[in-house]
């Protein structure tokens, strides 16, 4: 149970399978019995124990996705213009993708130390493959007739990219973004292993202390966060690509 002692977390004051005397009030009995899920305790402790972790989790994910999008987009644009980059970058991203997450975090700690930067390196790495592949596929799927029209109308390369290619590549890019986001939210829980916080922290704590409510609540929050983020991206995609749903009746 307590094999996974995270680097940054403070060891529990009392060793062994101790049920902590968290919180107070009416939830005491459920906590004392270490019930499956003590709702009252969760509600009482949400603000102090979970909300800050949730914010950290969102920050870690957002930074990873943001940086990942920038790198993958730049690489995909370059590969789209100059064909040779595709294979090396795909291989590189695929290689990163195959590294087991725990090993990756552990490995990076040796290089860059225990900090957010280390966590982000690993998290960004996992987003690259899907974002790169989807962005490149999107750019390549732009109808050639639209490109010919753009050329014939005197649009510059830059104007063509911004006004024609990227908007038309958006559906596959957004699909990749959804997968990357959900995956990263899930992976970020593992990043707590190197003590950078996020919802992984209460999960590790809960596992260590054996207090079920804590890790179930944290895991549940991670799931809810992933679903919410995915839902937001679906809404964003619908707003950004209104043409995709409008077809001749």
């Amino acid at each position: 149970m307590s094999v996974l002692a995270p680097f940054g977390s403070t060891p529990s004051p009392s060793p062994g399978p101790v049920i902590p005397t968290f919180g107070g009030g009416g939830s005491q009995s459920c906590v004392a019995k270490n019930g499956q899920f003590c709702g009252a305790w969760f509600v009482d402790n949400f603000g102090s124990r979970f909300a800050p972790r949730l914010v950290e989790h969102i920050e870690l994910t957002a930074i990873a996705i943001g940086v990942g999008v920038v790198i993958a987009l730049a690489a995909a644009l370059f590969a789209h213009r100059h064909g040779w980059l595709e294979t090396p970058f795909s291989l590189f991203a695929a290689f990163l993708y195959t590294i087991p997450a725990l090993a990756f975090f552990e490995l990076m700690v040796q290089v860059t130390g225990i900090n957010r930067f280390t966590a982000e390196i690993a998290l960004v790495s996992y987003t690259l493959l899907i974002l790169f592949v989807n962005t490149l596929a999107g750019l390549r799927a732009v109808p050639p007739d639209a490109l010919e029209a753009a050329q014939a109308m005197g649009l510059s390369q830059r104007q063509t990219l911004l006004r024609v290619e990227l908007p038309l590549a958006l559906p596959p890019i957004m699909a990749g973004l959804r997968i990357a986001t959900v995956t990263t939210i899930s992976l970020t829980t593992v990043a707590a292993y190197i003590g950078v916080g996020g919802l992984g922290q209460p999960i590790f704590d809960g596992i260590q202390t054996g207090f079920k409510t804590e890790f179930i609540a944290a895991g549940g929050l991670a799931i809810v966060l992933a679903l919410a983020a995915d839902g937001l991206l679906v809404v964003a995609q619908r707003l950004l690509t209104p043409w995709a749903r409008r077809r001749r009746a």
Partner: protein
Amino acid sequence: MNAGLTNGGYVVSGEETQAGAATRPAAAAAPIGFVNVFKRYPGRTQAAVEDLSFEVPSGEICVLIGPSGCGKTTALKMVNRLVPMTDGDITIDGKSVSGIETAQLRRGIGYVFQQIGLFPHLTVEDNIGTVPRLLGWSKGRIRERARELLELVGLGAEDNLRRYPGEFSGGQQQRVGVARAMAVDPPIMLMDEPFGAIDPITRDRLQDDFLRLHREVRKTIIFVTHDIDEAIKMGDRIAIMRDGRLVQLDTPDNLLAAPADEFVADFVGADRGLKRLRVWTLNDLELDPWSGTKEPAAPAGTTLRDALSLMLTEGATRVTVTGQDGAVMGCVSLERIAAMLGPQPRTPEQQAPAP
């Protein structure tokens, strides 16, 4: 009448077109000249276009036609430099296209092609507004122009402005394509098999509507097709090409009446005599006085083909020709038509019918 062509360049500036083509017929057109134009591709001995020289007068539709690989599309695309020419010169209103900056050149040339190429992510208004936006037109002016153009191409309904290309049929999309090409009222248009992918009935309507539109706006047009019937219908003049060379450049009627060689005769088809029937209307014939007998009647604008068809189905040898108000103008006999199309001199003017 080259309002858009003065002031040191043929390129249409935003200001000069403000009045709009539709409200000001023949606002801008410019002659196009090919002067000893060559296109050679590296590694190929046969030139794609070889020593091509001809002139398209202002406001005319010149059709380029020939078998596939004859260089007609290459010739067209050298005008807006989608294909760079190897040698020679192409001029628009006397100015070499090589001397004009690419983007500026292309914004001044309407381009319509078979695949249409509307931007699926933009509304019809934004599609039409693409080049105007590059030229810095205001939103209101773009909307006004888009509305005017949709009206002109027969898609006048107000809500069409906000619809996406995917919501239209192929024929309607090409109407939008034509509207988009005319957005900044360019003096010339290049049309590369514009109706080639559209079903025959719709194509026929598009051709008719486009000819009507052309009578209003009078652009100089190079029109590529592989369909001789379309060439005869659309062209003021037809240039037949073969292996990169110009074989014959003539009016549709002369081309059908006097093909320059066997290749042309073969290309226009053994039924060229019948095809000529479509070039002429009853209006172009000298009418015989009406005999007062009961005959099938046809309006003066009827093509000889349709008039002949009417005679055949009615078992008659004459038709009564009626004017716009339905009044009898005279009659035309089978012999008159035969004499007209025969080898001897035809009408006094020896001229193709006015387009």
